[in-house]
């Protein structure tokens, strides 16, 4: 538990992805089974316990601390779990005689003053633990004292079987055995959600590195595995064969496109390419496994539970995998496991049961997840209302019906199509979608063109070039080489994306924050604002934040400007001078705009970045909020069904 706590502690502070990977890989390398396996389970979100509520934690601390001192401490620290982790008195101190029952600070360096007289007065918590009771901790919760240290495996195994009534006492017992960091980690583990900036995918990448493997290989075999993953580690360390079994519905690393601009077209031959629309949704992979020997009869979809899906994609414990698959349609027993993956390989099936239900032919479709209502594709703004929901209710799926627009076919039944040329895969895809015959899945149409001028015109006016009423959901065109196989990663040459022009506004730099890692000394995150009418004339209102889009040289220039023009500091944030005639104008590019109640300005931008530094422009000439509101109105109007 101590090493696991130290790992979490370090991960929580480390901003860089590569450094997080190194920390985890090193932990897996130097920690024995089964501890590391339980740690991997915790990091991949494969553990869930009957969650302890904050109220339970609060009661525990109330039993063994002075309320005034607790209040002062909580005020200072600001976080309940952390306050408890720090404040938890050591059992030694609590056994010290004290004029206050259940309270016994001290016993530090000036030892004699606090010397125990031997007339030990136990705190209520301790008394509970030492008094023989008919229900001792199951799973030998006290065993950790045998070898001096509480083990993560002991915690996990005990929690799995512990009844709710026994939880407080067991928890208090463990808190006694741990130090501050250990207590903090334990409370995080028990109350659910480590929140140390590690995705399941990242943890798998780290464990893969242990054996010099790619995360993909772990991902493929993951569904068959269960914590504490003894055989997985044995294989990664070269002590055993690769564990048998694999995912019948695996994620396949997607092929990505390079960005392209109009001048690049001159070097390409239009006859070599097919073009299609780039849809403004989220890129997904929809996979249905071929039918296993015995027809798959999964239980019906369980009702969604609170707390699930908070990150949109919590990988469920291996044993629960099947439960996400809805029953096959009557008369069709032809598929096994069905899954929907995000572009990064996270399993997002739970968030889209309606789309999962449509995958009743074995195969793997690469496509775009969209919301389609009344036959019309909705804007990304509408899709966002479906994403990141804690629970997927029937109302949500009815109001925001998920739709898959198919770009490519990676597998048809058992057959891997990725080696075929794109043109051939496209033919197979047309056939597959036709056989699937489900209104929730359709084919992304090709864009007809014979010259680059045709394509330029189509990109400028998708509605007239075949996208019709869905044109507002088009965010550019894709060019795919007819002869190209489906290659993982972002190879240069076979696929090009040519996005539509971004929206551009002039804003005023208002706040700057220091970055992390290599940018830790630079003010590299910028909050920018536009003018609006305030109570006493025009004032600036923040409309967004951006932390990229500028060159290294521009970063140095902005950093210098921020340092020289600071008017106020708030921790790592500086307020920068912003008056009509003094300040820095930032030209910001963004992809979309929507209304937002979370922002004072009432608008939120999608994918904002610094496009240009306008040293030449006085802040007084920057854009106004009214311009953004007009833009929203135009977007909404264009995309209304």
């Amino acid at each position, binding site marked *: 538990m101590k090493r696991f706590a*130290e790992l979490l502690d*370090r991960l*929580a*502070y*480390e*901003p860089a992805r590569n*450094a997080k990977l*190194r*920390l985890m890989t*090193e932990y897996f390398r130097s920690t024995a089974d089964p501890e590391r396996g339980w740690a991997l389970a915790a990091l991949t979100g494969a553990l869930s316990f009957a969650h302890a509520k904050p109220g339970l934690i609060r009661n525990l601390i109330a039993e063994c*601390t*002075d309320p*005034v*001192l607790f209040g*002062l*401490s909580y005020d*200072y*620290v*600001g*976080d309940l779990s*952390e*306050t408890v982790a*720090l*404040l938890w*008195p050591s059992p030694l*101190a609590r056994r010290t005689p004290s*004029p*206050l029952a259940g*309270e016994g*600070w*001290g*016993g*530090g*360096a*000036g*030892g*004699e*003053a*606090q010397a125990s007289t031997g007339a030990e007065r136990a705190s209520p918590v301790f008394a509970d633990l030492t008094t023989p009771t008919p229900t001792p901790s199951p799973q030998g919760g006290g065993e950790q004292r045998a070898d001096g240290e509480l083990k993560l495996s002991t915690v996990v195994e005990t929690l799995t079987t512990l009844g709710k009534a026994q939880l407080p006492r067991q928890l208090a017992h463990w808190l006694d055995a741990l*130090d*501050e960091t250990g207590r903090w980690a334990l409370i995080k583990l028990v109350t659910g959600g480590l929140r140390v900036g590690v995705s399941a995918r990242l943890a798998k990448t780290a464990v893969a590195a242990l054996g010099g493997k790619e995360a993909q290989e772990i991902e493929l075999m993951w569904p068959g595995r269960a914590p504490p993953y003894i055989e997985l580690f044995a294989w990664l360390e070269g002590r055993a064969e690769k564990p048998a079994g694999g995912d019948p519905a695996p994620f396949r690393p997607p092929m990505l496109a390079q960005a392209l601009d109009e001048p690049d077209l001159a070097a390409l031959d239009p006859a070599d390419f097919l073009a299609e629309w780039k849809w403004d949704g989220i890129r997904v992979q929809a996979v249905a496994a071929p039918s296993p020997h015995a027809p798959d009869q999964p239980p019906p979809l369980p009702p969604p539970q609170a707390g699930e899906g908070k990150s949109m994609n919590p990988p469920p414990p291996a044993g629960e995998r099947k439960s996400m698959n809805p029953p096959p349609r009557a008369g069709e027993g032809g598929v096994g496991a069905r899954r929907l993956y995000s572009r990064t390989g996270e399993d997002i099936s739970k968030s889209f049961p309606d789309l999962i239900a449509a995958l009743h032919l074995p195969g793997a479709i690469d496509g775009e997840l969209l919301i389609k209502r009344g036959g019309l594709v909705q804007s990304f703004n509408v899709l966002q209302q479906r994403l990141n929901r804690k629970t997927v209710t029937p109302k949500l799926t009815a109001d925001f019906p998920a739709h898959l627009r198919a770009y490519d076919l990676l597998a048809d039944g058992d057959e891997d199509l990725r080696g075929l040329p794109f043109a051939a895969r496209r033919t197979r895809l047309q056939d597959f979608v036709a056989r699937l015959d489900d209104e929730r899945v359709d084919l992304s149409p090709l864009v007809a063109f014979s010259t680059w001028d045709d394509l330029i015109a189509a990109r400028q006016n998708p509605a007239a070039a075949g996208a019709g009423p869905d044109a507002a959901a088009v965010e550019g065109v894709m060019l795919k080489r007819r002869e190209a196989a489906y290659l993982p990663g972002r190879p240069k040459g076979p696929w090009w994306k040519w996005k539509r022009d971004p929206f551009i506004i002039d804003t005023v730099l208002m706040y700057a924050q*220091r970055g*992390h*890692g*290599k940018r*830790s*000394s*630079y003010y590299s995150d910028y909050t920018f604002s536009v003018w609006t009418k305030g109570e006493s004339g025009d004032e600036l209102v923040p409309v967004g934040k951006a932390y990229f889009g500028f060159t290294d040289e521009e970063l140095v220039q902005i*950093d210098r400007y921020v*340092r*020289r023009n*600071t008017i106020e*500091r708030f*921790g*790592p944030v500086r307020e920068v001078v912003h008056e009509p005639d003094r300040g820095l104008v930032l030209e910001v590019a963004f992809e979309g705009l929507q209304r937002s109640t979370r922002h004072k300005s009432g608008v939120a931008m999608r994918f904002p970045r610094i496009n240009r530094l306008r040293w030449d422009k006085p802040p007084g000439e920057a854009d106004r909020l009214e311009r953004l509101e007009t833009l929203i109105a135009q977007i909404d109007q264009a995309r209304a069904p």
Partner: protein
Amino acid sequence: MRPEDILVLTPAGLCCKHGDFHIDPTRPVQRALITHAHADHARAGHGAVLATAATLDLMRLRYGDTFAGTTQAVRYGERLTLDGATVTFHPAGHVLGSAQIAVEAGGLRIVASGDYKNVADPTCDPTCAPFELVPCDVFITEATFALPVFRHGDPRGEIGKLLHSVALFPERAHLVGAYSLGKAQRVIALIRRAGYAAPIYLHGAMASITHYYQSRGIALGELRPVRGAGKTELAGTITLCPPSALADIWTRRFPDPVTAFASGWMRVRARARQQGVMLPLVISDHADWDGLTATVAATGASDIWVTHGQEDALVYWCGTRGLKARPLDIVGYGDEDEGLDGETQASSSRQRQAEDDDGGEES
């Protein structure tokens, strides 16, 4: 005689009327007794200064030879009579030369402890004499970490964290923010005791004080200035710098730096995060909650005066123990040695602003 007749709070700080002197005055006075050389306690411009030899040397290093009209060095335990009062200096375990000052008059003994640290194991700080308990009637205590959430633990564990990180990231530089007087030298000494023998690099601002520590026989191993070292040379090394430098453009000379901060404040996550610290090291030169309460009790004092920090909690705790306690509002303490980057401390922010604006280069 009442304690208030011996020591009174004046605008300049604590004043002993019998002996006609101030203790750690915050503005220039005729006669000053100084507990230790941190800038919030030791200021320049007094007429006469009485302090330990190390404290006087450190003040001289910081302020120049003319920092006071006259100076007099005092040994720990030496009894001096200043008019109607007797004073003795006792080790405070805070930084090199730090002292508690005991003032006796009319049969009462008051101990002004300045800043102090009482650790169970004196090897936790090889850089100064360990805290000595002085029984007294009135104990004047700091309260920097006077909340039960502050328990500092064994600093050697924190040093282990640092060295583990250095081993894990051999291509990155490790920057340890530490206060220039005391903390930096203690961290270096602890790193050496943990068996790390490679050269340790120093920010220019801490060179002279660190060299003074070495001249007093404190083994710190090979130290090199950062200035002049190339980026490649700094990979895999440890550098000590003032905390404010962690966020400074000065850090750009290091390869992908890991920023650490050695301070008692690092116990609280939000505090560490506000600083953008990646590797918080809980190492403090102040007593933690257990240390404060144990010391207060052990002095036998029945009257406790609480200076800078979290006075409320400590005053409350004294009440639960039947001890008379009151906060002593001395404006100006707590600015230097454990302050957070100056950004939460109004009084020092102007100075940092100045450092920052001239490019933040090494002094």
